[in-house]
């Protein structure tokens, strides 16, 4: 169903531009191929290009790195390993107090698949990639841990000595008297949640262009970074320069971010270091495999949430136990994902007593960072699933339980138990309107009718408070009050805007909001046009940032949905400040009081005598041309920069109460889903989402944010998961494995609005961009739980997972197959067995199999085979599977030799694209026709890039390679052919071992 957007109104006199869905000023360029994204911009002549060699192991010691061959390749300027980077940088700061370092590249140990191990810099990208393939890294694998609860189990592999037991932080909080509330309540409900890893995956990947001026020891960096610019201090510190020697700029356009491009910052350090070492500008554009594997992801979290509940469903207390998985390193600003919601742990509900235990753990997965919703999806999944469970447990309607607990409309501004100051709202009214306008009664009737026919139909509800405009001090809640006192207070959120008038009186606006497609330039042109009585097209807005020249603060950037509430409001304040001075100038020119001045239709006019007026551009230009003739109290009107920070954003108090965000929108969602009884596919029948985001500045863009967030949340609920094998191998390295919603899966949500302005922001606006990422996953989960009548639901709701819930675990396949098959679920070990026939007696075949020259000619893609001893071989092979072609070095040893009847082979293969290990037993016997019958069995394991992106193709490719080996062997043996599958020494170990596996 398509829903109309309120489109641009015709120009009709005096109504304000704010609130109208005018066409976007950004769009003409973007629609005609004239966008200016980072990789669209030219670079200086002589700029070098970087590629990054990454770890195929989740956890391993680096024994050696041999980059000589890579360095010798023509066009290669440098190969930087960890020690080279360390020589010119210092560790990134870590967000908790612990003796732990955090480098943008592995030093002597890798801790996640995809961790940078070397940076190759060459005259072009292809040459850099050629060189990266020649680097030989010797690893000694360690045991890996990927599960957050497993990581804090005694005996688990430890990632950092400075985080004993992998625990980076463990804090307990207590608000009110939760113990008494639990003791006094008639009911206690609990829920255990595992929230999965996912990412909003912008279609444009990371990009960095860096240069270093050795004379001034100053860096200049262009990156599609999104903020927060508190990270600027982290980068400068890592590069060992003061902030004024790190000039960080952003390109005019950025291809989506949703928080993710905050995570480019370690690469800024890395590429800047490469620029310093080579003395040349260096450019790096991330590829999609790198992005999915190793850019950044949202945190996965294990939560136990309990509620003390009265008989009528009123929640009296909550007890949170959250174990946050931040991946292999605690990178800035983590553990912010966990603390962003700290003030909002009671959601939309009036709950007086709260107990919290927050643990932050490290595991062998990609480090986490900003992602749309940022902590909200994890919190609301637990809270809103629990509310449904309470309703079922007490035999109440879930919507009644929600309504019983909502904060009273008369209670605003309302201080939550954990410290948030909820600015405004009328949650009861919003729910009532949504129920009516969204036709809940009709949906319920539909559910009843469907169920009467035996269909699986369910309805889910969610109520969510959407925080926006983060308090820069919330993260210090992770510290104790004593630690905070020592560190000094952190709070506030400085927004900035600059309004300038040029010599012909045209208006320019600059902000440090770094949009990635949200249309900030358009909205600001509306806001400022209203103040000056101009049209949006008269206002030119620039949203690029240059930290060397522009006004900015640590809070600058595009995150925490801060644009409408903070940045647009600040632009209004800046314009009003200029307008106030212009009014004094115009008053003196028109001989009226300043209070009599209005700005309208391009003129500055006397309210009482509209004939008495002067063109805006004329007044606006005076400060340039004739400053001496201006009234003394007017000051200049050339340029005004306003910084605005809301006083409500105070630091955490001594009882750890924190107003983590300035604004709080309200969302109430409900939906109907139907589940196919055969395929268990979830279909969204209808999705209703009611938003109160305060004053709406541009209805089309607000709906755009809601739809976009809804779609990403739908993906998180139904399809998306950054999947890891138990050994830490990453399994979803392509967009064919990490499934994103497309046009055929995304319905149009029914969007409704209510506007309760925020009393804390200049325009009354609140953030709106992240809400559905918080509300929609759990709303869909509640609906699916309702449809299936089950208590435990884990995302994503893929049919296979629902099948396990509904039908139990899948039985093992029947034995006896000859093709490779996984030994057991969750393990990427493969085993198989088979037979083949080759012409030539066993003695002849035996000799061939052990002869390096023969092997080199029959192994597909073999470059060389070296015989180290009679039973020890090394081979160098190049093989392609699907999109992945790579070189592997194999090391094979023979055991239990029984010539010419049997041999056992054991070995491993490694390459830039992956690694494998395998063991196989081969027996040779006469086939009765002068030939040899070969029987083999093998057991192998695979990891690394090939497992991330070739997983679906490996079985088929394996058979092809075995076939090729056999055909060649048979030809060498004097004709004949191999039937069916086959085996080989190196086809098993050198290549197949390096190639098959990676099954989920």
């Amino acid at each position, binding site marked *: 169903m398509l829903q109309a*957007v309120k489109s641009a109104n015709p120009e009709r006199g005096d109504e304000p531009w704010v609130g109208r869905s005018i066409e976007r000023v950004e*769009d003409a360029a973007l629609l005609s*191929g004239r*966008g200016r994204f980072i990789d669209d911009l030219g670079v200086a002549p002589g700029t070098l290009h970087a590629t990054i060699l990454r770890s195929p192991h989740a956890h391993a010691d680096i024994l050696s790195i041999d980059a000589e061959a890579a360095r010798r390749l023509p066009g290669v300027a440098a190969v930087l390993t960890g020690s080279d980077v360390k020589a010119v940088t210092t560790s990134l700061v870590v967000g908790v107090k612990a003796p732990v370092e955090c480098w943008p590249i592995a030093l002597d140990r890798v801790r996640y698949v995809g961790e940078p191990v070397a940076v190759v810099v060459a005259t072009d990208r292809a040459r850099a990639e050629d060189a990266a393939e020649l680097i030989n890294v010797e690893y000694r694998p360690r045991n890996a841990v990927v599960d957050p609860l497993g990581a804090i189990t005694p005996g688990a592999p430890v990632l950092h000595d400075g985080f004993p037991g992998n625990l980076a932080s463990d804090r307990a909080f207590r608000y009110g008297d939760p113990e008494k509330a639990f003791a006094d309540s008639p009911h206690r409900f609990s829920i255990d949640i595992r929230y999965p890893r996912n990412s909003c995956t*912008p279609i444009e990947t990371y990009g960095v262009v860096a240069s270093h001026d050795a004379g001034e020891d100053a860096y200049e960096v262009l990156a599609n970074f999104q903020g927060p610019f508190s990270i600027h201090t982290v980068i400068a510190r890592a590069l060992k320069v003061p902030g004024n020697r790190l000039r960080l700029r952003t390109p005019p*356009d950025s291809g989506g971010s949703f928080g993710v491009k905050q995570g480019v910052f370690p690469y800024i350090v890395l590429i800047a270091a490469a620029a310093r070492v080579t003395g040349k500008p260096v450019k790096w554009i991330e590829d999609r495999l790198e992005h999915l594997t190793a850019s950044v992801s949202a945190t996965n979290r294990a939560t136990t949430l309990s509620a003390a509940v009265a008989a009528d469903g009123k929640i009296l207390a909550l007890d949170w136990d959250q174990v946050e998985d931040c991946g292999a390193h605690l990178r800035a600003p983590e553990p912010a994902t966990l603390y962003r919601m700290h003030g909002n742990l009671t959601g939309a509900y009036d709950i007086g007593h709260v107990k919290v235990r927050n643990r932050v753990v490290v595991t062998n997965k990609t480090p986490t960072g900003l992602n749309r919703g940022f902590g909200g999806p994890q919190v609301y999944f637990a809270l809103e699933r629990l509310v449904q469970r309470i309703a079922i447990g007490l035999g109440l309607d879930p919507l009644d339980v929600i309504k019983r607990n909502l904060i009273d409309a008369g209670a605003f501004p309302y201080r939550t138990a954990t410290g948030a100051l909820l600015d405004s709202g009328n949650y009861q009214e919003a729910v009532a309107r949504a129920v009516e306008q969204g036709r809940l009664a009709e949906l319920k009737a539909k559910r009843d009718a469907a169920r009467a026919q035996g269909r699986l139909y369910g309805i889910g509800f969610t109520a969510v408070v959407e925080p926006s405009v983060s308090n820069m001090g919330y993260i210090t809640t992770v510290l104790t009050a004593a630690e905070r006192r020592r560190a000094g207070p952190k709070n506030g959120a400085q927004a900035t805007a600059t309004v300038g008038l040029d010599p012909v009186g045209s208006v320019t606006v600059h902000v440090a909001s770094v949009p990635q497609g949200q249309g900030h330039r358009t909205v600001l042109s509306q806001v400022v046009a209203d103040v000056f009585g101009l049209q949006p097209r008269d206002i030119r807005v620039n949203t690029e940032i240059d930290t060397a020249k522009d006004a900015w603060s640590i809070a600058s950037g595009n995150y925490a949905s801060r644009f409408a509430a903070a940045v647009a409001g600040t632009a209004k304040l800046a314009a009003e400040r200029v307008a106030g001075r212009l009014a004094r100038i115009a008053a003196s020119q028109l001989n009226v009081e300043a209070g009599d001045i209005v700005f309208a239709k391009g003129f500055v006019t006397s309210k009482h005598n509209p004939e008495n007026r002067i063109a805006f551009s004329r007044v606006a230009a005076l400060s340039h041309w004739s400053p001496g003739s201006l009234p003394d109290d007017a000051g200049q009107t050339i340029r005004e920069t306003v910084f605005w920070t809301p006083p409500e954003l105070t630091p955490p108090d001594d009882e750890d109460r924190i107003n983590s965000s300035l604004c709080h929108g309200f969302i109430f969602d409900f939906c109907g889903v139907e589940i196919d009884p055969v395929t268990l596919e979830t279909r969204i029948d209808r999705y209703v989402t009611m938003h109160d985001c305060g004053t709406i500045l541009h209805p089309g863009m607000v709906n755009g944010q809601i739809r*976009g967030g809804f779609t990403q949340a739908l993906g998180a609920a139904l399809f998306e998961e950054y999947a890891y094998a138990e050994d830490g191998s990453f399994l979803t390295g392509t967009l064919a494995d990490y499934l994103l919603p497309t046009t055929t899966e995304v319905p149009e949500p029914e969007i409704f609005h209510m506007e309760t302005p925020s009393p804390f922001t200049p325009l009354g606006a609140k953030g709106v961009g992240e809400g559905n990422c918080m509300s929609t996953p759990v709303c869909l989960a509640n609906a699916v739980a309702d449809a299936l009548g089950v208590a435990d639901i884990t995302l994503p709701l893929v049919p296979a997972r629902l099948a396990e819930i509904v039908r139990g675990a899948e039985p093992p396949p029947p034995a006896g197959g000859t093709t490779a098959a996984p030994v057991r679920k969750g393990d990427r070990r493969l085993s198989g067995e088979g037979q083949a026939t080759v012409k030539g007696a066993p003695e002849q075949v035996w000799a061939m199999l052990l002869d390096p020259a023969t092997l080199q000619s029959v192994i597909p893609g073999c470059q060389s085979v070296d015989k180290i001893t009679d039973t020890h071989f090394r081979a160098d092979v190049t093989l392609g599977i699907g999109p992945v072609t790579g070189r592997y070095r194999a090391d094979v040893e023979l055991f239990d030799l029984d010539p010419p009847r049997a041999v056992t082979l054991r070995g491993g293969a490694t390459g830039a694209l992956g690694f494998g290990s395998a063991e196989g037993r081969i027996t040779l016997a006469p086939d009765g026709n002068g030939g040899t019958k070969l029987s083999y069995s093998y057991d192998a394991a695979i990891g690394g890039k090939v497992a991330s992106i070739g997983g679906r193709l490996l079985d088929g490719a394996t058979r092809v390679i075995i076939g090729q080996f056999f055909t060649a062997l048979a030809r060498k043996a004097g004709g004949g052919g191999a039937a069916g599958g086959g085996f080989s020494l190196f086809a098993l170990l050198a290549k197949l071992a390096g190639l098959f596996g990676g099954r989920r």
Partner: protein
Amino acid sequence: MTRLKADSRHAVRFSLNGKPVEGEAEPRMLLSDFLRHQLGATGTHVGCEHGVCGACTVIVDGMLTRSCLTLAAQVDGCELRTVEGLAPSADRLGVLQQAFRRNHALQCGFCTAGILMSLDHYLAKNPAPTEAEIRDLLSGHICRCTGYTPIIKAALEAAAELTSAKKETSDA
């Protein structure tokens, strides 16, 4: 069939939006990289380099083509159309582009070029598509910003407008 040497650069000539262009490419160079970095036609974007996201879609000899799965050398002598050729003039947008702007059918605009090319190609052959047909067509494109509905709406509006414009022309 011409054999190209892997380690040398070869001349590649084709027609880009009606104008002859040429450059040199190693055999392994992708068409997407050639367009963007050799010819400066940066309107075509690269999102995944494995043919899933659709951002790099261009038209080669009348066929929708993923330029990230095509080698530059393969299009020697072909007719190519890219997003840069859609607007009737530098300061005016075409009907489909205007419909996108009117419906807020783009946010960051990174995936948009590929979507426009698919729609432009499809609407020329299917002037009266249904919503389901447009959704099916665009299922080969990933957009992370818009939630797709405004794109569908823009496509249907553009189709209707193009049809009525054609009718007027033929009536005249």
